[in-house]
C-alpha cells in the first residue's frame, strides 16, 4: 500500500479536474463551502463537471448533484461563479433537498 498522495487515490476530483482540463475539456468545479446540521460531505468536498454534464466526486450523498451539474453547465458557459444553497427548509426539497435534514452551500466556478 503506497501512502495516498491524494486522499481519494486516482479518483480524487482535483486530479480528475486537472486531467480533464489538460485533455481540452471545459470544466467546472463545485465545492462545499458551508454546512449546517447533518451534512453528508464535509466542507471542502468537490464535484468536478464538464460541459457535457459528465461529473466526478460528490458534494452530498447524491441528493443534490443533479442540480449542481445543471448549474455548473451554465457556469461553464457564462464564466461567472455561482453560490448555491440547498436544504430541507426549501419548498423544492423534494426535488433538490437533503433528506438528511442538513443544509449546504456549494460554490460553483469555471476552471481556467
Amino acid at each position, binding site marked *: *500500500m*503506497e*501512502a*495516498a*498522495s*491524494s*486522499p481519494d487515490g486516482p479518483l480524487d476530483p*482535483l*486530479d480528475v*479536474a*486537472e486531467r480533464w*482540463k*489538460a485533455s481540452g475539456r471545459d470544466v467546472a*468545479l463545485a*465545492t462545499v*463551502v*458551508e454546512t449546517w446540521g447533518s451534512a453528508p460531505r*464535509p*466542507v*471542502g468536498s468537490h464535484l468536478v463537471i464538464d460541459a457535457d454534464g459528465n461529473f466526478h466526486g460528490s458534494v452530498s450523498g447524491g441528493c443534490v448533484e443533479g442540480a449542481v451539474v445543471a448549474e455548473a453547465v451554465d457556469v461553464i458557459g457564462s464564466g461567472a*461563479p455561482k*453560490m448555491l444553497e440547498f436544504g430541507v427548509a426549501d419548498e423544492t426539497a423534494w426535488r433538490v433537498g437533503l433528506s438528511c435534514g442538513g443544509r449546504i452551500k456549494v*460554490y460553483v*466556478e*469555471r*476552471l*481556467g
Partner: protein
Amino acid sequence: MDLKSLRELNAARAARRAAILLTKISDGSARVIREGDEVGGELDAAIAKAFRSGASGSVEADGKSWFLNVHLPPPRIVVIGAVHISQALAPMARIAGYDLEVIDPRTAFATSERFEGVSLHADWPETVLKERPLDAYCALVAVTHDPKIDDFPLKAALDAGCFYVGALGSRKTHAKRVERLTALGASEAQIARIAAPIGLDIGAASPAEIAVAVMAQIIGAFRSRGLAGRGGDA
C-alpha cells in the same frame, strides 16, 4: 481557479506538503498558500489557524468573502518493529483512517503471514527511510527494543519534525536511549518530544492494549499539532 493553481495544488498534495487554496468568492480567483506564506491583512490569522486545525471554511476578511480549502497530507504511521504490538496496531490504524507501514530487518518477524494486508518492509530503517522519507505528517513508533534498529529512525523522526515520536521501553531503558540519542546530536528539546514509555497511561498490559494506548496517543498528537496546552476538545 486557474489551471496553473490547480496544477500547483495537486503537485503539493502529491509531494505530501500542506497547502491551502484561497479563493476569492466574488470572482473565483484563487492562489495556493504554503505553510509559512504570508498574504498580509486579516487573512494571515485565518490561514495560520486553518493550517493548524486542518478545517476548511469561509472567512470574511478585509471587506471580502474568501474560502479556505485546507489540504493536509494524510497522516502516516511508520512502525519500527514487526512485533506483537504492531500486529494489533495495524488494523486499529486502518479503522481510524491512518496509513500505516511496518519496517523490520529481522525477516523472522517481518513476514506477510504475520502482517497480512499490511505494508511491510523487511529491511533496515536506514534503507527504507531513504526511499520514503519521514515528514511532519508522519508518526514514528519504535517498538523493537533494539537500539541497533530503533535509534536511527528515532533520530530521523526528531529531525523531520514528525508529529509523534514514541519509543517502547521502561524509564531505565529510555534513560540509556536518551544518552545514545544525545551522542547522535539530538537536542534536549527534541528528546523531550519522545513519548516514552510509549502510549497513554491507561494501565495497558497486553500487546493489544498497548496498541490501543499508542493509537490514542497518536490521535491526540495529530489533533493537537501546534496547539500545546489545548484541552481534549477534539
